[in-house]
């Protein structure tokens, strides 16, 4: 009996294997153009994403240029231990976490809000206008954005200080760029201004996917606009929100390097030195390649862990998850 069962199982397995193979060949034959189009993407990932990963090994080596990546001597976790023990470990980690959490907490809902607001506009032309206006700053270079911000916040000539003085909110000009306390708000708010509209696009498209009949039915039942928002629009957005939240949490410790670097100055270094700028200083400026590779790898490991954890939480609390 048992033997027979095993036999059938084996047979079934063979059958599945066989049919899978056949399906694959058939699909290849039928859609070969599509598979052909896939090749550049695969090549891209292998060349630019997987091949460089081989270089990660220098994080565990005492890299020198003469022996190259493969020939350098293995030294284990020495660089990691050095980083954990270093004076910078705590400050860079806390700074990175603070900046990216604030960016997520304030920036993430901002996009959703913009999408909902745009969706509530009555006229099609005003919708398009507002949408274009909100996502246009996305195409500005970070250098320009930081330059704009410095000019506008200047204590002597900046428009913001002039306005605050005019309305009596401040008695004397406030030197925004030179105070530790204003670094994170400046970073987050300018980020929302620049990327909020761009981030809203995905929600706007999700909103357009909601069945209009639901709204009609709600209206017939006498639902107010707010009730429609509460019971139709937001539930319709939740799957997209969850997906975006999980993806964003994977970047939780990778604060964009350029903007922080541009905004750094002598007065705010203690709150603005993040892992990515530290890696840049150590790697490119000081030439400590192994050490900066180790710090970067540590950063990526945390990001990966965050992604897995948040996905798990989302899976157990809601129906939505990445995998």
């Amino acid at each position: 009996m048992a033997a027979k069962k095993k036999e059938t199982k084996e047979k079934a397995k063979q059958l599945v294997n066989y049919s899978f193979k056949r399906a694959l060949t058939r699909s290849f034959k039928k859609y070969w153009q599509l598979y052909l189009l896939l090749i550049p993407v695969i090549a891209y990932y292998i060349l630019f994403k997987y091949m460089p990963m081989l270089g990660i090994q220098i994080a565990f080596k005492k890299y020198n240029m003469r022996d190259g990546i493969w020939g350098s001597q293995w030294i284990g976790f020495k660089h990691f231990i050095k980083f954990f023990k270093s004076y910078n470990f705590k400050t860079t980690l806390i700074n990175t976490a603070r900046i990216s959490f604030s960016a997520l907490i304030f920036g993430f809902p901002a996009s959703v809000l913009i999408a909902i607001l745009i969706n509530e506009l009555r006229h099609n032309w005003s919708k398009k206008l507002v949408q274009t206006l909100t996502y246009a700053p996305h195409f500005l270079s970070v250098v320009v954005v930081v330059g704009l911000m410095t000019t506008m916040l200047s204590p002597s000539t900046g428009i913001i200080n002039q306005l605050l003085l005019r309305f009596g909110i401040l008695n004397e000009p406030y030197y925004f760029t030179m105070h530790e306390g204003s670094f994170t708000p400046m970073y987050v708010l300018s980020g929302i201004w620049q990327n909020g509209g761009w981030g809203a696009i995905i929600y706007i498209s999700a909103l357009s996917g909601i069945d209009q009949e639901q709204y009609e039915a709600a209206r017939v039942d006498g639902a107010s606009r707010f009730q429609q928002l509460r019971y139709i629009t937001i539930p319709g957005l939740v799957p997209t929100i969850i997906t975006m939240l999980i993806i964003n949490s994977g970047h939780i410790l990778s604060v964009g390097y350029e903007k922080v670097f541009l905004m750094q100055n002598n007065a705010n270094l203690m709150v603005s030195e993040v892992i990515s700028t530290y890696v840049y200083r150590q790697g490119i400026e000081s030439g400590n390649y192994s050490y900066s590779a180790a710090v970067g790898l540590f950063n990526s490991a945390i990001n990966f862990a965050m992604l897995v954890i948040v996905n798990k939480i989302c899976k157990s609390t809601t129906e939505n998850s990445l995998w």
Partner: protein
Amino acid sequence: MKKFSAILLCACLALSAAGCGNTKSDSGASGSNAGTPANGSSIDVPGEGGSGFPIVTDGTSLTIMVRDIPAVEAWEKCTAIQHYEEMTGVNIEWIEIPYDSFSTTLTQVMASGDDLPDIIMKSGTSAVKLNQWGRDGLLIDIAPYIDRYMPNLKALMEKYPEVKRGVYNPDGQVFSLPEIVEGASYIVNKKAYWRKDWLEKLGKKMPTTLDEFEDVLRAIKTGDPNGNGQKDEIGVSISMDDLMCYLYGAFGLQNRGNQLGQYDVDPKTGDIRFVRANDSYREMLTYIAKLYKEGLVDQEVYDYTASRLASRLNNDQTGFYVHTAFDSVADENKSKWEAQTNTIKGAEFDFWANARNNLHSVGNFFITSACKNPEIALRWVDYFYSTEGSMLYHNGIEGVDWEVKADGSYGYTDDCLKRREDASSADEWKAQFSMWGWGMNPALMSADLEWVSECEELPTQAAEALIDKIPEVVWAPIQFTEEENDIISEYEGDIKKYMTTMSTKVILGQIELTDDAWNQYIKTINDMGGAKVLECYKQALIRAGYDF
């Protein structure tokens, strides 16, 4: 048709992806093989012993990666270079890298290890990095060639032992060539200048003490010396670094000159210390914070840019200027200024800290392992350490750009001065006929012979008066062992960063310098590895022949 276009599209995409990977190795082949015959040591040596021209007759070429100066149109168009190519017979292919991104680009080129140029010039790379690259086998050790191929540099090193100690690393290797300076205008590197007419109008004398300095600044700020009825004058508009350099002497800081500007000797114990972590520095911070609070220092001093300062200097908005040269003030305004020829006295100390050694810098010229004819390269550069070579390098061709005048002095020719009027800036004019532009030169620079901006009337006047007031011992750049290198590169950057941040906050008034805060500051520097770094510097300085 549909299928065909799909294949075409796909092929294009695949090719473009592959293209990115290939371009680098392509340019690599054309870069390093650029016609360098591998004839090794069997070179044509007309003047045996390494002098005399031409150096080669077979048209050997070298590739030189050079830090580009914005005013330079193209290096091969510079007349001094063209002249020198004819003299030596060596063809130079210039790889020009933009000024601001030079060190990043250089680090990346060295890190990739292949596609190296023969020579890197005007680089100003630190000895720490050079030793690291040298030990990794990326650079050629110049030491064995010096005796035979570099008579001019050798003579200078014998004349100035400190130059020799700064050029050789502890293992007896030489990985880069220095810039060597002579004469007061270069030894005294920073000088101070005041608006003569403003001081007269305000009834003030040139400040000699800290109190007088404060008093003059206050008069400038409140007395409306530019006479436009508005209080738009700014006392201190220079960068914070320059202001500190101006004041260090009054507080007894940087008492070994400012080339190793972070370190000096504690006058009480005679031991090495951090310039920015002792009680004198605390006093100085308190003093500057007071100036800042009173508005005598530009409130946006930490957003300093050279162009903003230049516009203020020339628009009657500030009357105090500190710089090595005197070049931000426009020619037509220069007569309104005078040089400060005295020091600023403090409570205990009275000297001018802004001094450098004859060894101006190392790391200005080095040869990579890709170079097949290092002896040709070294003979090519050695000429610039001679008097004639230095003249060619800095002032162009004799008889064309400069001449010996009837009274025996040197000066530019009339033709050359006429070209100055046509050029839009002094930098652009100089770049047409000399390689001097913006320093970091592998050459001898002598104040008696050259008329770059540091040797103009006011800077020279200041330097000649202050040369007697500089510290007795001025530390030159020094060399470290591999272990010292490792320790310094691990700790020093972070310590400096911490010091700068804390100083900034004190000056801006965000932190009050209580005893607790100060002790915490000193303790943190120690926790960050301060003592280890100091010990490395001390050992290296002892090796370089300085006493403690």
